[in-house]
């Protein structure tokens, strides 16, 4: 499938099935748009009618451009055929591996953020901390079900995982003690609100955690609007010094400062620029996911504003990079030369199959977003997945499983998107969260434009 768009002065043509990216002038842009539906003579006629006054647009020039397009088509870089659908089904049917766990070590939190999808860490249930014994069994379950996969990921998640810090440390020690004998390489992530992020935690994280996700929504007034303690006091002044101390000692290891934007701050780029100006360089900012009836839910009217914001962000990032003060935005990270293979692109996030969430009690869910929804309980870490009917639903999620995705140019970039978002928006994991799709497509257009801009300047 070919997708054409204009952004920041660039005319960009994507050939999605091959992953090819072309930057073209406006004449070639129009010829490509006509190429599959018009004869050569019709194309010549239409292009001459539009550009005939220009000395560089002659019949010969137009025919030469058509020949170039034919050459790219023959080389499989334009109008290439998408033949991957069968691969997605076969790959997920044949793979019974679990390779990643979201470990809910604490269903409790020391903040009381009203927008929390996990209802202040409790996931619509009781407050609880995971015991070492349950965590240990989760690691044993992961190893037993990971077959020959070497890289295994565990995200210490909550609630607030630092409220169960001793168990986190014990579990890391346990995992390190068994990984060699099983030929595994554990990669740990910790997601924290920063309230308990002291020097001892920082030192441990810098030694053991491949990635640390720090929750900050941006400007003080934006952050403190939702991210408050149980007394109602904003947490910005409490957590910011902790985060700054953390990145000072982090060196070149991965971290993300991650925020959520809502209807209240549709100018979210100002929050990202605030983070960057504070010295954070690895940033992520996500649209809030909540019922449309919530007062802070993103609205249809917000959409064009958000599109503009994503463009502002891309342009500012290019500018700051030139000025020698770059920052990374998670959703604009795209490596056109070394990115994921086709299997990754079509099989999705792996929720419910290779990626599972584990509650403090050892129950298994398709991912953190389904925890607390009894209908989606898959089983437990002692007996494995027993609700195979629900799991089959997740196994069938891929880039082609939703009718809306079939004609979408972005499906090999999102792989059909987030099953939880689909479920919350439509009541079915096989549905489509259209609002999220629109934002995703805009982000991809911006991310690829940035790659084009940098290639053009190289």
């Amino acid at each position, binding site marked *: 499938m070919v997708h054409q768009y204009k952004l920041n002065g660039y005319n960009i*043509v994507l050939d999605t*099935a091959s*992953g*090819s*990216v*072309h*930057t*073209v*002038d406006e004449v070639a842009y129009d010829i490509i748009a006509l190429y599959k539906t018009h004869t050569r003579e019709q194309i010549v006629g239409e292009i001459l009618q539009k550009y005939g006054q220009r000395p560089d647009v002659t019949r010969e020039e137009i025919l030469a*451009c058509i020949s*170039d397009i034919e*050459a*790219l088509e023959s080389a*499989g*870089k334009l109008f*290439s055929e998408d033949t*991957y659908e069968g691969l997605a089904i076969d790959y997920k049917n044949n*793979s019974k591996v679990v*390779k*990643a766990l979201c470990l809910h070590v604490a269903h409790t939190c020391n903040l009381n953020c009203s927008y929390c999808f996990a209802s202040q860490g409790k996931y619509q249930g009781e407050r609880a901390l995971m015991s070492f014994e349950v965590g240990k069994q989760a690691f044993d379950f992961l190893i037993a079900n990971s077959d020959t*996969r*070497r890289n295994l*990921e565990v*995200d210490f998640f909550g609630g607030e995982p630092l409220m169960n810090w001793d168990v986190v440390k014990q579990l890391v020690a346990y995992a390190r003690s068994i990984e060699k004998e099983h030929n595994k390489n554990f990669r740990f*992530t910790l*997601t924290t609100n920063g309230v308990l992020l002291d020097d001892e935690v920082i030192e441990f994280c810098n030694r053991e955690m491949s990635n640390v996700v720090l929750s900050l929504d941006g400007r003080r007034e934006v952050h403190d609007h939702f991210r408050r303690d149980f007394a109602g006091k904003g947490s910005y002044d409490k957590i910011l010094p902790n985060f700054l101390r953390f990145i000072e000692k982090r060196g070149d290891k*991965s971290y*993300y400062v991650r925020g*959520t934007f809502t209807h209240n701050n549709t100018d979210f780029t100002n929050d990202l620029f605030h983070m960057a100006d504070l010295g954070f360089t*690895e940033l*992520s900012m*996500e*649209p809030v996911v909540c019922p449309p009836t919530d007062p802070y839910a993103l609205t249809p009217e917000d959409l064009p504003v958000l599109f503009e914001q994503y463009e502002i962000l891309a342009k500012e990032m290019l500018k700051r990079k030139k000025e020698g003060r770059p920052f990374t935005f*998670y*959703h604009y*990270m*795209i490596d*056109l030369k*070394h*990115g*994921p*293979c*086709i*299997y990754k*692109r079509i099989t*999705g996030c*792996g929720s419910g199959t*290779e*990626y599972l969430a584990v509650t403090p009690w050892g129950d298994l869910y398709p991912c953190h*977003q389904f925890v607390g929804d009894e209908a989606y309980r898959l089983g437990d870490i002692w007996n494995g997945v027993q609700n195979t009917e629900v799991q089959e639903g997740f196994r069938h999620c891929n880039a082609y499983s939703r009718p809306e995705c079939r004609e979408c140019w972005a499906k090999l*970039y*999102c*792989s059909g998107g*987030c099953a939880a978002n689909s479920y919350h928006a439509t009541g079915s994991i096989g549905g489509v969260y259209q609002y*999220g799709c629109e934002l*995703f497509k805009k982000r*991809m257009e911006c*991310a690829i434009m940035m790659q*084009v801009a940098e*290639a053009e300047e190289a």
Partner: protein
Amino acid sequence: MERIKTIETKNIQNTVKNGGCGECQTSCQSACKTSCGVINQNCENKNA
């Protein structure tokens, strides 16, 4: 090609044969917990 410039990219058609090792990061496991995408994951397979 005068009017068309092609950016160097990985040809994903070529990864049908050697891809699929599954060693790459799970896409929703880091700074994205609500708006999953797959494209920003690095490939761990040098042959793919």
